[in-house]
């Protein structure tokens, strides 16, 4: 089975973000970037499928040369080779990026395309549906369990209050949710081996961008907590404020 895993380089969740002058992007300097955690589930799923059924795992990422580091993370985990779709900056528009990925994926002849259900930087949740549409194949999002046999896939999705089970033929696009697996850490020999694996870089055929970022603003400062009093006497006031001010009751 030939599996593509689409990856995104995102700021680490523990990184403190500052907004660049102009208010449309963040300052990259001093920020630690990681492989999008949801994409890690996708890489792990691909590697497990390869281990069970054989085949090839190809990691693909779109962006400037720094994404090669992210691709090498996937290679260190065990992917066989990597493709960088090179751009100058970090394009935001989902369809523009999806078009470039779809062009590459179409020519690659993949049986399965895996990715995270969303990137933790933009929270768009849009790439898997967009790729399914552009490639005209089934697209199943936020999968927490995936089994493949005889060219058909069965996936479980956690929906409100229950589990939805879907089946679909391959090729298909599947996006990973938390719980799909426990991603392996890159081993030290894996990190060394990654340097020797093939890394192809080619220009990205970006589609036209229709969505642009106008402004980014940090969340408002959280006000300091207040101590209303002590003991049972403080309870009525606490309940009143939880109802009227915090509006959580």
């Amino acid at each position, binding site marked *: 089975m030939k599996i593509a895993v689409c990856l995104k380089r995102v700021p680490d969740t523990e990184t403190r973000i500052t907004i660049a002058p102009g208010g449309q992007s963040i300052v990259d300097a001093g920020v630690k970037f990681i492989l999008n955690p949801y994409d890690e589930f996708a890489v792990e799923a691909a590697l497990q499928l390869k281990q069970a059924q054989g085949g090839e795992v190809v990691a693909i990422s779109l962006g400037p040369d720094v994404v090669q580091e992210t691709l090498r993370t996937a290679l260190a985990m065990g992917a066989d080779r990597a493709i960088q779709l090179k751009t100058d900056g970090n394009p935001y528009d989902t369809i523009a990026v999806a078009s470039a990925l779809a062009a590459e994926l179409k020519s690659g002849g993949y049986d399965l395309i895996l990715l995270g259900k969303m990137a933790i930087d933009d929270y768009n949740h849009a790439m898997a549906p967009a790729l399914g549409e552009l490639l005209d194949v089934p697209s199943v999002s936020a999968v927490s369990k995936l089994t493949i046999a005889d060219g058909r896939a069965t996936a479980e999705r956690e929906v409100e209050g229950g589990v939805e089970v879907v089946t679909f033929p391959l090729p298909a696009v599947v996006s990973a949710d938390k719980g799909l697996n426990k991603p392996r850490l890159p*081993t*030290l020999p894996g*990190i*060394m081996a990654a340097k020797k694996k093939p890394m192809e870089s080619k220009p990205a055929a970006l589609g036209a961008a229709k969505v642009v970022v106008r402004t980014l603003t940090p969340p408002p400062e959280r006000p300091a907590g207040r101590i209303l009093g002590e003991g049972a006497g403080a309870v009525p006031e606490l309940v009143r404020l939880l109802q009227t001010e915090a509006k959580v009751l």
Partner: protein
Amino acid sequence: MSTDFFDIDGALTEEERAVRDSVRRFVDDRVLPVIGQCYVDGRFPRELIPEMAGLGLFGANLPEEYGCAGLNNVAYGLIMQELERGDSGIRSFASVQGALVMYPIYAFGSEAQKRHYLPKMASGEIIGCFGLTEPDYGSNPSGMITTAREQGDGSYVLNGAKMWITNGSTAQAAIIWAKTGADDKSIRGFVVPTDTKGFSAKDQKGKLSLRASDTSELVLQDVCVPKTAVLPGSGGLKSPLMCLTQARYGISWGAIGAAMACYEEALAYSKTRVMFDRPIGGFQLQQQRLADMITEITKAQLLSLHLGRLKDAGTFTPQQVSMAKRNNVDIATNIAREARRLLGANGILAEYSAMRHMENLESVYTYEGTHDIHTLILGQAVTGLNAFN
């Protein structure tokens, strides 16, 4: 991380950062959740050995042809840093396995010994220990009384006792240093399977430091080993001292990890702990503690990083390693104590890491060349005068 004040990350290669990040995640996910309880229980978390081996942590700076990761020495140091950010006992385990057991086999062993032992030690199938120190010979190992008498058929009979041996009761193989003749020039290394008749190990009880680590006493009573147990390249006290140089190099990095853990905990606590109506981090006395800590951590980072670059270039000296071990463990010990004090009463709880690190670091201060011995090594290096005896 808040401990990278001088953009040390920028001085690391992508590969070095990747190694550090992998080990960091392992420690965050697998060590930190259990280590406090292990420490209280006086138990080394041996269930982590297969995962540590799977990551390639053992002997990671030895070549790939022997099943090791083949990393450079800076990456190796970063592994030690991250492991000791978890606990000195975890780092000690990896130090012993890599620098004190796999290294002498690599440096002094026959090709057959290397092929037999190194891949199995890298995979954690064989755990090793290092027997140099004796009950009455710590800082002066040349006085050791353990003997290896060569027999007519070329085999050896070993007799003696070793003490303060990390992993001693866990190990399947022990590197034993013994005198084959009268003086310290006759010291040679032996790889002794611990199930050999006459070999026994028992854990030392009552430790108030390194509680998440096995420390044992070894007794060798007429232990007979074949000629193939000798490390053929070993000869004289210089051989075990070369191993200690490797281990001390790793310790210099490890101590930074312990200091980082204490500083980060203290820093976070200082921002959230409110006293006199404001976070204690807003008071000058605590700020001085934190400023001193991050300054010393940064100096130690620069020292070890440069030492690692020298080691990779093949130009480092044992005296430089002594300076790094002496300085970094000393500052880490002080940082752990100051962090514990900043944490107030909470600082004595196992729920926080400062006091555990503080207690551990007293051992690290004492082992692998005490602080005082490294002082004398540096003193001799700069004056040319021997103050040992």
